[in-house]
């Protein structure tokens, strides 16, 4: 059985100022519970109300995206797992990074989309947001409004960074990093 150096893990988390780290299948209630904990951590960390809302908002959009995506693909167990990390630095900036499994065919369009958003200035991002807001949604669509990534890009201090890593079964581990 695994017997890791637990102090080492604790120091790793502390040294990187990691507020929250989660990996596993994520249910709706778990998103709510972790979100509630995150909000409390941020408030205890004396984050400004707007910073708390930005980090919490990015967390909600990213985790709900992962849930919607896994559900639309009929993923089970490990494929539907989300990896979530929230950390802060001395300047009051917050890092939120999430990762999840995606079909190989979906990875490139997603990376392209994020590269497009990363290249936009605030005015272009606002325009993209308003355009998407006005786009009709297919009736009965269970997923979101396609606004989540644009919303995070608008609130981020730096351009979003997405990465992909191939997995043994041909799928891709997709990861997104936002600094807020």
């Amino acid at each position: 059985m695994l017997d890791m150096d637990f102090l080492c893990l604790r120091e790793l988390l502390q040294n990187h100022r990691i507020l929250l780290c989660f990996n596993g299948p994520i249910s709706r209630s778990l998103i709510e519970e972790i979100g509630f904990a995150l909000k409390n951590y941020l408030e205890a960390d004396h984050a400004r109300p707007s910073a708390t809302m930005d980090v919490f908002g990015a967390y909600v959009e990213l985790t709900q995206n992962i849930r919607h995506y896994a559900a639309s693909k009929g993923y089970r167990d490990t494929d539907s797992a989300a990896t979530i990390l929230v950390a802060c630095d001395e300047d009051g900036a917050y890092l939120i990074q999430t990762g999840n499994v995606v079909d190989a065919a979906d990875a490139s369009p997603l990376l392209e989309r994020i590269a497009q958003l990363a290249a936009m200035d605030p005015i272009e991002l606002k325009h993209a947001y308003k355009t998407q807001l006005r786009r009709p949604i297919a009736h009965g669509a269970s997923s979101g409004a396609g606004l989540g990534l644009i919303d995070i890009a608008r609130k981020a201090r730096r351009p979003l960074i997405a990465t992909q890593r191939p997995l043994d079964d041909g799928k891709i581990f997709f990861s997104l990093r936002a600094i807020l």
Partner: protein
Amino acid sequence: MSTSFTLPGTQTTPTIVADWNEGLLQMSGDSYPENSFDFFTGTLDWVESFLKRERRPLRLELRLLYMNTSSVKVMMDIFDLLEDAHKLGQEVSVVWRFDPRNERVELLAEEFREDCTFPFHICAEV
């Protein structure tokens, strides 16, 4: 559906009070349900039937805080219904009250107001 209804708020959904006789819809709290379109269907229908069946004014009083983007999308749909009614001469208005310590809420309300020509007041509440 010429009735009034009250939906108590939860951690992820706002409190909604719809009063047909008063012509008043109030919403307050956080809004980030996983499926916002399902959650707001009843409210959207209520606004639509009020505007269709009544010529009286309709007022919205909002104290919404955090909204996920799908809730924002539905809220835009509600404001679009008000905008259409306003253009047909019906009296509609929105008052959005916010805590001045949180400028994000004010920015959110301001972005909605950009697309509306009916009276839309954003008020800091101390």
